[in-house]
């Protein structure tokens, strides 16, 4: 931070407080106001184990251009109090350029905070709030932040009123409290930075959306009209957002008695001709794998959105990790080829989920879409994504009075499907191995033919270029997937700025594999860096198993819940170069 009036393109702010202090509200109001004013941004949250009202941390990143992940450090930390700072400290990297604004009433910062070297500025949020009608300390902090960052006060006032007027806060009181907060500017160091002002834009082209909402929307765009779910963190809000909207569209969401039932209900509805899905997280996915195998064998379309959380077992339900890759790829018994896709960002949740529905319907095969808690629950301001164009619907059998072979061998392995109610199309969907007609068979030949068919239909399909997002050229390539893509892209931009030519290959289609496409993408690449968020390097081992990688492969793989930071990737990219 150089000059008093200096401007920055991107800024990261964390707000923490104990139960009831309103840290999360403060963060979302900040995001919303910044969005209204024309910036982009992202908010994630971290909370204590309490069901309600526990300590909370809001992490906000604002920028001139779209934001898909957090950065390496925080410019600003607002501490409404210090009660639970130690719980959150690992999530908010601070340094001696960081500014901490702490409520005077909150006492002394903990040693670990002081050790970061960040500058601590004590401000009388509580004292001032006590003197104002209906004001709470976090509103004062919000006023202060508007001033600090340069967010126009009217955008902030509007955001506050929209959100809090339901709770009995008048416009006048809100304005007063925010103004009082902005008065605290005298305490700002002279070298603080403000956000560079945004280009004016048409607000209607932009969304305030989470990945879970985007995925729901993608599913609806894909044609999903029936969902059966069982609640599980962090996937429940996807179901909850979808339920009334599905209803509105003429569809239905049902809460089943458990995940096994929800998966089976989905197959029943899909067998009935309705594109159908379920929504879950790791433990729930584990319960669905037997029935997913049935969908493979009986060739029934079905989509599972799996919002990953920390594992194994119940693990860390509220935090993010990329450790369900293995179960998604390999968790079905027998040889059971199926679709696995992964979203890369909040907005990509829409695209990838929509695509998954289209592929599942086209290929009569279950599709697992991997999202994660990070993008699923991150609230972002983004440009309205453009959905994919509609795909042709499921291939339906034209049946007459002759024999209908449900699992007839076709060139592309896709056999037209009869929909119950159609005269002449009667067949039995079966998880037993069967012949082309669908009659159970344990013959060697039928087994091989049907196994081939089910593999070939996936392998021969033309997925176009969407199997991966490929960016740039260079002898170094970073291979990644899922929400980790954000950190990789940010690091690579910096590496390029530092003169290193780097290619990014972020996989969207994980299964079936695309060895020829990958070979093309890796042409000329001599060094590959694999970046993922799992303890056992699941993605790396998957790549080794199914792709030809360059001789030199490096891996950054660590578990959640901390997101992979751009600097980790950048340092690795640059350090290793020095060693050469």
């Amino acid at each position: 931070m150089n000059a008093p009036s200096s401007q920055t393109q991107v800024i990261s702010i964390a707000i923490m407080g104990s139960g009831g202090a309103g840290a999360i509200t403060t963060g979302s109001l900040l995001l919303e106001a910044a969005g209204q004013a024309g910036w982009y941004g992202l908010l994630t949250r971290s909370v204590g184990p309490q069901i309600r009202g526990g300590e909370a941390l809001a992490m906000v990143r604002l920028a001139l251009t779209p934001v898909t992940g957090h950065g390496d450090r925080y410019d600003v930390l607002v501490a409404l109090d210090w009660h639970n700072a130690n719980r959150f400290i690992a999530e908010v990297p601070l340094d001696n350029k960081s500014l901490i604004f702490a409520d005077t009433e909150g006492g002394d910062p903990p040693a670990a905070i002081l050790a970061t070297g960040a500058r601590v500025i004590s401000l009388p949020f509580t004292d001032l709030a006590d003197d104002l009608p209906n004001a709470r300390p976090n509103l004062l902090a919000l006023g202060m932040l508007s001033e600090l960052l340069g967010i126009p006060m009217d955008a902030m006032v509007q955001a506050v009123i929209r959100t809090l007027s339901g709770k009995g806060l008048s416009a006048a009181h809100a304005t007063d409290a925010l103004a009082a907060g902005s008065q605290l500017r005298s305490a700002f160091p002279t070298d603080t930075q403000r956000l560079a002002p945004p280009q004016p834009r048409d607000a209607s082209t932009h969304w305030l959306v989470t990945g879970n909402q985007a995925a729901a929307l993608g599913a609806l765009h894909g044609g999903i009209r029936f969902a059966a779910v069982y609640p599980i963190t962090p996937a429940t809000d996807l179901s909850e957002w979808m339920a009334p909207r599905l209803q509105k569209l003429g569809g239905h969401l049902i809460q089943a008695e458990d995940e096994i039932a929800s998966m089976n209900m989905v197959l029943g509805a899909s067998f009935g001709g309705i594109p159908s899905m379920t929504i879950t997280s790791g433990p729930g996915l584990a319960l669905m794998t037997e029935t997913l195998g049935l969908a493979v064998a009986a060739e029934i379309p079905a989509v599972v959105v799996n919002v990953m959380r920390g594992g194994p077992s119940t693990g860390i339900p509220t935090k993010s990790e990329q450790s369900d890759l293995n179960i998604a790829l390999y968790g079905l018994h027998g040889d059971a080829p199926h679709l696995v896709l992964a979203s890369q960002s909040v907005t990509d949740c829409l695209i990838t989920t929509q695509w998954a529905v289209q592929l599942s319907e086209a290929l009569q095969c279950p599709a697992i879409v991997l999202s994660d808690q990070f993008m699923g629950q991150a609230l972002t301001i983004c440009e309205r994504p453009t959905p994919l164009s509609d795909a042709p619907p499921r291939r339906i059998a034209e049946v007459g009075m002759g024999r209908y072979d449900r699992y007839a061998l076709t060139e592309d392995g896709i056999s037209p499907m009869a929909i119950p109610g159609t005269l002449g199309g009667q067949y039995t969907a079966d998880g037993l191995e069967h012949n082309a007609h669908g009659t159970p068979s344990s013959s060697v030949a039928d087994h091989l033919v049907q196994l081939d068919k089910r593999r070939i239909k996936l392998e021969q399909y033309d997925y176009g270029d969407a199997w991966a997002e490929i960016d740039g050229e260079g002898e170094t390539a970073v291979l990644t997937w899922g929400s980790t893509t954000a950190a990789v892209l940010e690091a690579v931009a910096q590496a390029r700025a530092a003169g290193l030519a780097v290619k990014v290959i972020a996989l969207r289609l994980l299964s079936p594999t695309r060895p020829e496409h990958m070979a093309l993408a890796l042409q000329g690449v001599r060094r590959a860096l694999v970046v993922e968020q799992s303890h056992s390097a699941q993605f790396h081992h998957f790549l080794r198993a199914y792709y030809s990688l360059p001789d030199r492969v490096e891996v950054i793989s660590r578990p959640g819940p901390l997101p992979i930071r751009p600097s980790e990737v950048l340092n690795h990219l640059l350090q290793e170069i020095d060693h050469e």
Partner: protein
Amino acid sequence: MNKPESLVPRYSHKDYKSAVKPIWCPGCGHFGVESSLFRALAYLELPPERVAVVSGIGCSSRIPAYTQCYGFHGVHGRAPAVATGLKLARPELTVIVTSGDGDAFSIGGNHFIHACRRNVDMTLLVMDNEVYGMTKGQPSPTTPADWDSKIAPGGTGVNPFAPLAVALASGANFIARGFSGDPNGVAHLLVEAIQHPGFSFVQVLSPCITYRPEERFWKKTVHPSSVEPTRDPAVAGHRLLSDDGFTTGIFYLGNRPCYTATVDTSNHDLSAIEEDLAL
């Protein structure tokens, strides 16, 4: 089942039978149940393509492929859930679940009680032979506690449970018991069950002559109910909890509203929904 004999029926029971040959042992009770089902469907003049027969795994669960209806032979124990999804998605279909005592009451117990509770309009037909036939003779939840088997030498020591009472307590809307040795009687029960709105449960005692040969003598044990079906759950509960498990007939007729849904795929206009996300 009194119908004017003069009319030529639209369907004969043969119209519901496929060319697939059952794998059942000669003499298996399930043959009788299959034929009862076909008679009931013919009586109701249900077009085969409008009927879906959904099952899990077991000898009893093999029925779908033996029919000319749409069939779904899924995984073990989950048929009521499949049927729920199907019926909600396609309310115009007649949905029948065919299951066994192991499939429905052991591994499928949770879906059984929740299907009773949810009361979607379908019929669950359980062929109860008090044994796992398909896996060659292990005890099921309805097997007597002292039945000696390889896996539980000397008996399980566990009281068999009363599926009809469990169904009633869980909320089933129609509860009946038949005996496969009386195919007409079973057909009659199925006609009533299919016609009754909501979730109908029909237990059919269906001997496994291979692993429970003593069940041949069930024909001497079963006896028709001497009283009329009740609409009062408390009365039905009292009866079912003091019943010997061999009374045949309809026990309970409920009138709870069905769980239904509309699923319509015609609307593709998401603009109103997208509005919710506008900044």
